[in-house]
């Protein structure tokens, strides 16, 4: 047994253990921490499977952003002091049964693979050169299946609209109820001053490198969102009200530019979302930059929650 396979076995045991303890946790807070750790471990597993793009996304979205969203929900639950929210026994049994069935189904599927596992990977690589991209994942996202990517960004905006629509009518257009811990000379303030320049550079790098290496708009956008949230939570920058025109513009700039370039392809190239030959790479990078901004703002605002108070004059 090599060191690597020992590492893999250890990783699998750890993932299963953390998964089980997350389910068994009685406190919501403990479960969330378990969930975040689980996400980080999974991203290591993805690295071991040589799926670095997936690993980055899992760490950023699965562990980081989702963890942050659920933590926010737990904090709100504590404030609300609702009635006993523990699910009843039949519900828990039903959930367990369903999970077991899905797991059994997946086991059947995975344990009886077809003789030759077919894949599109060679075809993806063969045609990638035309676009000037080096990262096959970016190729799938922005060349072959650009339509899906474009519309997923619209889904993100709808999700944000869904969160906003939970606000009371009286504070519509107001400021999201992000909890701010403004204490000058605290560690948080120090970090909020120290990290953002580094984070912004990392985000730009991830977005830029996404065309060639693992990375891209979603990962870059998440880092950007994290930096923005850090600054806002530390009270160094105010949370903007959701009616600000610049905010709305930033939210849609990515999909709008994507859509415009796609439509231009009907005239300047052969089809919708086709790029004129020779211009594919610069156009895709332009789209990625715009998307990074939009995704960053959208994720930051998703974490900030629905508007809770109107702007002070």
């Amino acid at each position: 047994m090599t060191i690597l396979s020992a590492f893999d076995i250890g990783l699998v045991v750890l993932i299963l253990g953390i998964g089980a303890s997350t389910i068994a946790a009685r406190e919501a807070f403990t479960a969330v921490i378990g969930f975040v750790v689980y996400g980080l471990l999974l991203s290591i597993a993805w690295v071991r499977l040589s799926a670095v793009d997936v690993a980055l996304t899992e760490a950023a979205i699965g562990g980081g952003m989702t963890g942050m969203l659920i933590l926010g929900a737990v904090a709100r639950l504590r404030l609300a002091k609702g009635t006993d929210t523990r699910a009843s026994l039949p519900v828990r049994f039903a959930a367990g049964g369903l999970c077991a069935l899905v797991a059994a189904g997946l086991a059947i599927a995975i344990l009886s693979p077809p003789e030759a596992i077919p894949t599109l990977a060679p075809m993806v690589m063969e045609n990638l050169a035309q676009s000037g991209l080096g990262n096959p994942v970016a190729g799938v996202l922005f060349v072959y299946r650009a339509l899906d990517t474009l519309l997923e960004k619209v889904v993100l905006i709808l999700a944000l609209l869904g969160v906003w629509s939970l606000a009371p009518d009286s504070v519509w257009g107001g400021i999201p109820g992000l909890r701010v811990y403004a204490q000058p000379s605290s560690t948080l303030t120090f970090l909020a001053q120290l990290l953002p320049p580094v984070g912004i550079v990392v985000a730009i790098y991830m977005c830029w490198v996404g065309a060639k290496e693992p990375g891209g708009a979603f990962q870059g956008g998440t880092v950007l969102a994290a930096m923005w949230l850090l600054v806002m939570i530390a009270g160094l920058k105010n949370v903007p009200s959701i009616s600000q025109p610049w905010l709305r513009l930033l939210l849609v700039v990515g999909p709008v530019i994507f859509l415009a370039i796609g439509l231009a392809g009907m005239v300047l190239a052969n089809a919708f979302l086709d790029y004129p030959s020779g211009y594919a790479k610069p156009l895709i990078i332009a789209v990625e930059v715009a998307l990074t901004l939009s995704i960053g703002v959208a994720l930051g605002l998703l974490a900030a929650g629905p508007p809770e108070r109107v702007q002070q004059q």
Partner: protein
Amino acid sequence: MPDANVLPDATTTDGALLVLAIVLPAAGVLLSFVLGGRYAERIASVLLPSGFILATIIFGDVWQSGHRLVYIVGDWKPPLGIALRADGLSAAMMVAMAIVICAVAIFAHADFGMRAGSVEARAPFAFWILLMAIWGAMNMVFLGGDLFTLYVAIELLTFAAVPLVCLDGRAETLQAALRYLLFALLGSILYLVGTALLYGSYATLDIVLLSRRVHAEPATLVAATLTTIGLFAKTALFPLHLWLPPAHAGAPAAASAVLSAVVVKGSFFIIVRLWFDVMPGLLGPVGAQLFGALGAAAIVFGSVVALRQQRLKLLIAYSTVAQIGYLFLMFPLALDTASAQLQGSGALTGGMLQAISHATAKAAMFMAAGLIYVVLGHDRIAELGGIARAIPMTIFAFALGGVSLIGLPPSGGFLAKWLLLEAAVATGQWWWAIVMLAGGLFTSGYMFIVLSSAVAPSGEPLKLRVAVPRYQEAAALTLALTSLLLGLVALGPIDILQVGRADSMMVGPR
């Protein structure tokens, strides 16, 4: 037998219309979001009618040519790229949903209209954007030729539909919306897992390519089961219907209409695509009977519970649970016993017609219920006395919708049930005929309860809280009349449903 690796199709003339059908709503959503609530309704009032015109042009094209329209997105053919395809089913559903959505938009002007010069308000801003998003998502469901594109489409649909449920912000509607979200997300994840398994087995998600490669093996069967259960949850097929009644009954009237009439048809359409187009040979007699049994259980359960409701909107919501059941009766009836394949026969036509006729009728009924609520300030069925004199046009629309649900001629419901009954007789499956007839009886029962209460004289003079705008009544009545006259499609365009079906390529221009 065509070679499994030959790329199936190329962009046809007018294929660009399909792109437009997805781009227009997306552009509307983005534009409204950035320009703000004051413009959202204006943008929708331009785009939604254009969407209707676009759908009729596509319908005309498909009908005239007898072939499907295809567009290869990004000039990358499947399996690498994505194809959009409009066959007869897509074209017919697109037109029907465009009609319902336009009528809902007219109806919604009263509740979500923009006051000139006022600042952006929450509910109108959200409503118009979500309505356009639903329109775009439905078009994508109808046109998407790739299982992952369809996943994005139902995600779009879910995130557009859930906020509509709790648009008025009451605590119980929040709870209903959250329950809906949980069911819908569970459905999404099951569908996604199934899609991943299919990709792992066949290295394509394109519907046409997949249909040539797919065969019964463990991974495929698991994938088919997972995706189907996921879509059942989103379609609210019994016993996964638990989220539907509170969500559809609690939403504002315009939202209820679009949720009950349009949104559940999206996931249903994907089930049809999956089983009729991707793997028609995989369901088999047992699976088909199981689908039918769930449908029958939905009809009986939904109808019986509807009969016992005190509140009008809940009654209509449970009626939706029952009517969804009819949609699944077509699976055992469309199964060709000799080849064990699902075939695009009369049963499929009947099922799709049922979907369209339910959409128009149910939207009209929810609108009527909304107007009754506005006038009376409540929707208790027992206290509806005198309402038929106060707003006769609305009650008439409600009754006409009921006529179609029951299946009286010449309504679309009549033709749909006729085709299904015919298939039941032809295939010797009399038990589904009994279920259908019993369902009709139940439906007449709850329609009778509501209407007899509505036409009864009121004990004391009815206090009308507000006058109902005429155009709202007209919108409901138009949809009800559409549903009533839908049976007349038997004289002509009904054949379009067969265009592009592999087993009936002979259908030519009429």
